[in-house]
């Protein structure tokens, strides 16, 4: 392996050897004085910060995100088969880095805690000179790091974050989300559920007792009630809960015939396992088969729950079995390198990196405000979800949403979900001031370039 400078400032410093060159910066951030924005790349490299959970319960998801980032960097720098670059509708990426600068990266551990995630992101910005921060596997972290990036004047390209708040009431001018959200899950799932299970259903919600749980419950509730469903009860469960038996058992006592598990990660694995244990899926209520729904699916969760996910509906941002050229190219590229197909978290992280790089190229500058402008209302295709709009009003991507269900006969431990329906983007679009998204009060603020 060749020896290269880790720090983007290294080259410059070597030139200044022997001289003491004090520079005073005012303003919150860290900037090279001449460029007018934080961490303006000098020399022939640019540093990106990949901030993913490496410890804690989401460590495996973080590891998958990191794989995707490394792949993206390889492709941006002209290595490998280029992945989705050839299928991407925008053609500014030529395998020569970003704006001709070679892409380097630093990694950090969010620990899925907002304090740790901010510390890690700050170290990337302050110490390593990262120009863009991306990654994460929970909405709490995404909101916290997004606010930090806004303050510091760098771009934040969110990783896996599904809460409405990220681009809803907590949206920021410097933050962008490709991943879908609770509202879209609800809007995509409701029609499929009503087709599959009928319009006359009584739903019982178990909801993780924190922000993401609230937004997801609200979204699914509204969407299904609009289809004619009735919500019997909604019970909040503590995040730290491991055994859900005492929440599942009361479901048996009601006349509910659908259980909605607004849980993610370990919570979802346990609550679903417990629900199946209690025989809910074998139950008949009012002559109808009892059903379970998981609004947000991920492959790792499906793996953790094992056979229990079979036949259970949920939504997901992307799945490797999608037939379009972009998805195929990415799956091939990722699978060849790592030996298994990518997860939705890997996909969104990869895409976010490419979108950022392309936006910089189109803007012709690393200046966050220029990049933000290039991303706003940008329409693109070929990155796996069909034609997509990066809406300028809230920095949320609008694209098709996948409704999936647990596969009956998986061929491998990665082949656990099958696509039931691709919900068209029109059905999941909402106005930027939608009440679930913080209403009229929510605002991006203005873009902050740092210096």
């Amino acid at each position, binding site marked *: 392996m060749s020896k290269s400078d880790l720090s983007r400032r290294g080259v410059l*410093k070597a030139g200044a050897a022997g001289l003491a060159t*004090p520079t005073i910066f005012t303003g919150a951030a860290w900037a090279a004085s001449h460029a007018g924005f934080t961490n303006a790349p000098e020399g022939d490299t640019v540093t990106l910060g990949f901030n993913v959970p490496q*410890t804690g319960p989401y460590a495996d998801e973080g590891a998958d995100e990191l794989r995707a980032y490394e792949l993206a960097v390889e492709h941006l720098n002209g290595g490998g088969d280029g992945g989705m670059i050839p299928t991407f509708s925008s053609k500014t990426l030529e395998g020569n880095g970003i704006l001709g600068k070679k892409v380097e990266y630093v990694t950090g551990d969010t620990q899925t805690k907002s304090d740790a995630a901010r510390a890690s992101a700050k*170290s990337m910005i302050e110490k390593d000179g990262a120009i863009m921060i991306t990654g994460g596997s929970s909405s*709490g972290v995404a909101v*916290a790091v997004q606010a930090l990036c*806004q303050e510091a004047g760098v771009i934040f390209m969110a990783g896996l974050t599904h809460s409405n708040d990220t681009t809803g009431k907590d949206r920021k001018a410097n933050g962008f989300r490709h991943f879908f959200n609770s509202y879209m899950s609800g809007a995509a799932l409701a029609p499929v559920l009503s087709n599959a299970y009928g319009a006359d259903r009584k739903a019982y919600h178990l909801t993780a007792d*924190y922000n993401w749980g609230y937004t997801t419950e609200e979204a699914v509730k509204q969407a299904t009630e609009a289809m004619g469903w009735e919500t019997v009860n909604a019970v909040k469960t503590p*995040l730290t809960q491991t055994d859900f038996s005492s929440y599942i058992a009361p479901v048996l006592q009601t006349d509910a015939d659908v259980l909605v598990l607004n849980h993610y990660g370990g919570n979802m694995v346990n609550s679903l396992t417990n629900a199946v244990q209690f025989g809910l899926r074998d139950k008949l209520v009012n002559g109808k088969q009892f059903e379970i729904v998981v609004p947000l699916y991920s492959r790792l969760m499906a793996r953790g729950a094992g056979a229990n996910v079979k036949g259970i509906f949920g939504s997901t941002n992307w799945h490797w079995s999608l037939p379009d050229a972009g998805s195929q190219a990415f799956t091939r590229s990722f699978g060849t390198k790592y030996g298994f197909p990518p997860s939705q978290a890997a996909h969104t992280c990869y895409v976010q990196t490419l979108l950022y790089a392309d936006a910089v190229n189109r803007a012709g500058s690393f200046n966050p405000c220029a990049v933000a402008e290039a991303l706003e209302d940008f329409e693109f295709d070929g990155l796996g979800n069909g034609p997509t709009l990066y809406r300028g009003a809230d920095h949320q991507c609008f694209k098709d949403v996948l409704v999936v269900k647990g596969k009956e006969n998986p061929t491998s431990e990665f082949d656990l979900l099958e696509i039931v329906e691709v919900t068209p983007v029109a059905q999941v679009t909402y106005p930027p001031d939608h009440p679930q998204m913080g209403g009229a009060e929510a605002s991006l603020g203005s873009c902050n370039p740092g210096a």
Partner: protein
Amino acid sequence: MFGLNSKDTSLLLVVAVLTLLAPFILNPFPENSDLAQFNAGYPDLMQRFVIFGIFAIGFNILFGLTGYLSFGHAAFLGVGSYAAIWMMKLLTLNVIPAIFMGIVVAGLFALVVGFVSLRRSGIYFSILTLAFAQMSYALAYSVLTPITGGETGLQIKPIDRPLLSNLEPGEIGRANLFGIEMGNSYLLNVGGWQFTFNAGYYIAAVVMLIAFYISIRIFRSPFGMMLRAVKSNQNRLNYTGLNSKPYTLAAFVISGMYAGLAGGLMVAMDTQVGPERMFWTASGEVVLMAILGGVGTLIGPVLGAGMIKYMENILSKINDAILHQWFAFMPDGLENFKVAIIHPFIGKGWHLTLGIVFMLVVIFLPGGLVEGGQRIGRLFRRKKRKDKPSPDATPAE
């Protein structure tokens, strides 16, 4: 000087000099060298060093002096943070009222928790404090979301219009001290080195020095002596006409106020609060800091805090690509071998390293890092005095 004896004065001066020169000391490696990865002299980490130093100093006043092991101290840090950020959101972006509010609210909370918990001692006390902290965490995460922001916590938003700050419409407020923003920095390039002098760090450092000075005074005061007597023999203290209850409660509240100060400073440096700041692992962390550094010593907790934060922030950022760079000069086989050996201990494996370090320190250095330092010191002295008669019995500390 400062009303301290000469030994403590010199300790304070050494700590002051080290703290003020930290931007140099923590950046020993030139920017473009492979070892620059180990540099810790960037604002965020330096701020964390001193803030967690304050937290650990405060914890040590309770645990080190009275022997009461609180397992819920992070709750006071969290409560202090929430109080501080609300102050910034509502009243002013100046950090002083925010920090002050953090101290006051944490102190009041500590008064309540301490009043109840100190009715028991030993592990029963520990579990009571743990229970209070876990309840605070659980409630802040869930039903108190309107006040705490729940999982996503609180940040300063464009809609926040503090009463005393004149912000432009749409401008997001930033924490400042009479106009000096915490993020302001001064960069000094010398040769291949780059040193960062950050306003926030120096404000926090001065606060830490004051906190450290107060803790020395407390340690050497009659009050501090009473607290050590509580740890040593509470029964005797009561039969000596002294009421141990108010002493322990006062120590608990002071220690809670230190935690609140740390919490307030955290918000001042980085305007964000999340509930996981109050989780039991955060309380456990400060216990580890104190024990790792040396319980009951003045400087130990600060060292312990520095060590844990260093590992958390530096080790976790080393990835395989960096390892390959370090060993690039080796033949490929050896390079890969070395990388494979080190791989489990860095990046995502930094917890493993942390666990091993705890075990090693506790096994071999029961007095923490301070004892390690003393042993090294003694080793040198013994070499020097080889010919002289052996030093007399160790004086009592």
